[in-house]
């Protein structure tokens, strides 16, 4: 058994732990924004670690797996930002006990939605 197999498998296990924690966060958190915090970003690190581990396990595919990891790293913040803005625009409320909502405060005197980009 080669050493890089073991190292890759351990790295993959660590990444899978983060993937699992992200999914657990999405079940436990009380509102959409907190779910997004736990869900879509714990999975980013989980993806990077898992794919790095798998690339180590199978080095001849490393370049292609790297492209997939880069793709996830670039698109993930974009999609979660788009979802968060859409949800806030659609009026999904923050959970009870949230401290402040600066965006809603700044929007209300202007009378509803401002211009979108």
């Amino acid at each position, binding site marked *: *058994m080669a050493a890089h*197999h*073991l190292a*890759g*498998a*351990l790295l*993959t*296990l660590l*990444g*899978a*732990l983060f*993937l*699992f924690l*992200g*999914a*657990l966060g*999405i*079940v436990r958190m009380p509102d*959409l924004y907190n*779910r*997004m915090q736990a*869900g*879509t970003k714990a*999975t*980013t690190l*989980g*993806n990077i670690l*898992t*794919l790095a*581990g*798998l690339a180590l*396990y*199978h080095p001849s*595919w490393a370049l*292609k*797996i790297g*492209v*997939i990891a880069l*793709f*996830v790293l670039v*698109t*993930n913040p*974009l*999609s*979660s930002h*788009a*979802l968060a*803005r*859409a*949800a806030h*625009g*659609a009026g*999904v409320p923050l959970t009870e006990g949230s401290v402040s909502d600066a965006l809603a405060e700044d929007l209300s005197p202007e009378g509803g939605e401002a211009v*979108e980009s």
Partner: protein
Amino acid sequence: MADVILELALVLAGIGVLLASYRLLKGPCPPSRAVALDVLTLITIPLLVGAAVMTGRAIYLDVALVYGLLSFLGVVSLARYFEKGV
């Protein structure tokens, strides 16, 4: 040894898929379901790459890439729909 750990990791990620689908089915509002779908995809991409490594078939890498691409487009268009309607 190493492939047992690898299988364990994929099983752990598979439990993550189940948790995310629970939120997808239960989610109180449509944007919550969209978030669950996003997470579901993000867990499925490494699972597909893992399937490629375990079976030794490189075609699953392309499947993972195209799946990620389509899901990104899907989530962004869902977000546009929530924001402005069709």
